[in-house]
């Protein structure tokens, strides 16, 4: 009876185990092996093993550029989007009429195709021979956002990234704000606390676990930026100088002679993982000291 039950359970799990084994566990081991294979002999066997791939990647100017771009993006977009969505969530939670309509609108970017809408952004900012584009027209400027200066391109990228990541954050923060027990507010009002004080002393501590959750997932997400950049600048990101770490990994596999440079791609992916992992651990450490868990 017991044995039969064991068998049955594993049977139910078999498909999941099979797929996860082939497409998750095995690749995980394999990527570490790839990253150490420095060079191959003519017959395809491994000729030497070492940290050469990591050295190659870290010395590659395109990788350094990608690393720099990714870090700048993270540093700009994570605080900006978290702060802005907190403001919007606070605004939403203080109104009653048409609240639902606002929520619906704000969520729209979540369900849109990143590539498609990114293209629209590109046209809005794009300056061509014929016209300087809608944004330039509204601002009264004549800036080339898409093919021009580095910081202008970074500006557009940051704006688009913020636009894309806001829905998730607004949604999570709105429900966090709604779940704060209203009695705290009543008590504070009776005690005569000002709204600024209520926000600082009650609201913020109560939702701080959610804010930190958003910061952590925001960091992780922003470090993996890629398709937003493709949408804006096309797939030749190295040429545009706007590549990201993930983009660098993909470029190592895409359109390469011999099917791709697996060693360098693996090394770059592992470096990315190490960065994300470190930053997450630091975040968790920090939040453990600061966050009030209710």
């Amino acid at each position, binding site marked *: 009876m017991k044995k039969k039950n064991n068998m049955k359970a594993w049977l139910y799990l078999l498909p999941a185990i099979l797929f996860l084994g082939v497409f998750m566990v095995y*690749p995980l081991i394999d990527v570490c092996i790839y990253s150490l294979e420095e060079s191959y002999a003519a017959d395809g066997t491994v000729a030497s093993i070492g940290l050469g791939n990591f050295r190659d990647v870290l010395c590659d100017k395109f990788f350094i550029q990608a690393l720099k771009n990714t870090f700048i993006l993270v540093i700009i977009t994570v605080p900006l989007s978290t702060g802005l969505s907190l403001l919007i969530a606070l*605004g939403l939670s203080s109104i009653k009429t048409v609240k639902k309509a606002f929520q619906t609108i704000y969520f729209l970017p979540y369900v849109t195709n990143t590539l*498609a809408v990114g293209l629209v952004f590109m046209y809005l900012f794009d300056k061509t021979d014929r016209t300087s584009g809608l944004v330039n027209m509204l601002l009264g400027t004549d800036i080339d956002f898409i093919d021009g200066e580095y910081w202008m391109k970074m500006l557009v990228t940051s704006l688009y990234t913020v636009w894309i990541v806001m829905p998730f954050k607004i949604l999570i923060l709105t429900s966090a704000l709604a779940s704060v027990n209203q009695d705290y507010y009543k008590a504070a009002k009776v005690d005569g606390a000002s709204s600024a004080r209520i926000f600082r002393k009650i609201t913020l501590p109560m939702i701080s676990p959610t804010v930190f959750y958003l910061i952590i997932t925001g960091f992780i997400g922003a470090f993996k930026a890629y398709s937003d950049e493709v949408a804006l600048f096309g797939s030749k990101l190295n040429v545009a100088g706007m590549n990201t770490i993930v983009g660098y990994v993909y470029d190592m596999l895409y359109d390469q002679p011999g099917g791709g440079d697996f060693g360098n791609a693996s090394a770059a992916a592992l470096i990315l993982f190490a960065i994300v992992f470190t930053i997450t651990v630091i975040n968790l450490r920090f939040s453990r000291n600061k966050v009030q868990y209710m």
Partner: protein
Amino acid sequence: MIEKKNARLSRVLIYFFLVIWAVIVLFPFYWMVMTSVKKTSAYDSELTPKMIAEEPTLENYENAFKFREGTQGKEGSLGRYFINTIIFTVVTTGLMMLVIVPAAFAFARLQFYGKKALFALFLSLMMIPSELVIITNYATVVGLGMNKGNMTYLGLILPSVTSVFYIYLLKENFEAIPDELYNAARVDGTSDLKYLLKVMVPISQPTIVTIVILKVIECWNSFVWPRLILQGNKPYYLVSNGIQSIRENGFGRQDVPAMMAAVVLVSLPLIVLFLVFRDKIMAGVSRGGTKG
């Protein structure tokens, strides 16, 4: 009196701020729709962009569909991309349900040796970013020839038919169903499989629908993995790859209104899906969905 005035002022400011953000969110959508109905010649002669189309037309939509790219025999077209994406989305989502429902059931309901260890392993896989495994998966798929001919569909689909997160979500849901129901069914001679299909799945229907919708959104927007394994294999492009390809090599460069028509067509299905299942999607996402 002063206080009342202040309250009203702050109310106005809040609404003003909320409306501004709503405009920022909506404007790109407005712009793509508006551009998509402008005559190409009219668009090209605008020296400053116009907010309203003067002679609205649907011919751009026609043009977007008429367009073919790629070499003879390896052609791609917008219609084809749509069909590919629908096949990809339906099969991936269907297969995923077949994989995750039994797995969640085993974790939630069955007792077996090694359950705790296996579940811990599953949970730890949740932390692994896809970027780390995609390199080997690419090698695997190419090695198995799943980037050629109709095998390409398998290459597109198979790596994304499991989701540890959804197994976890469903398991939590299954566990909330009281034990008595299971015992009642056992006394009545119900097999485990029948219990799963006739009792657990219907009771968990809200969660299952949420998972399906979230997966459909994810599939519809897939870009990076298909791009990697397709590498110019145009007949199998999904809509995201199609958009990118049209923009870089196709009519996107000359005919912006037609490009925008394509963009509208690609965006529309998910927006409709969202407006229909608004509450389910938002509840599902707030329970732990993330973008992509």
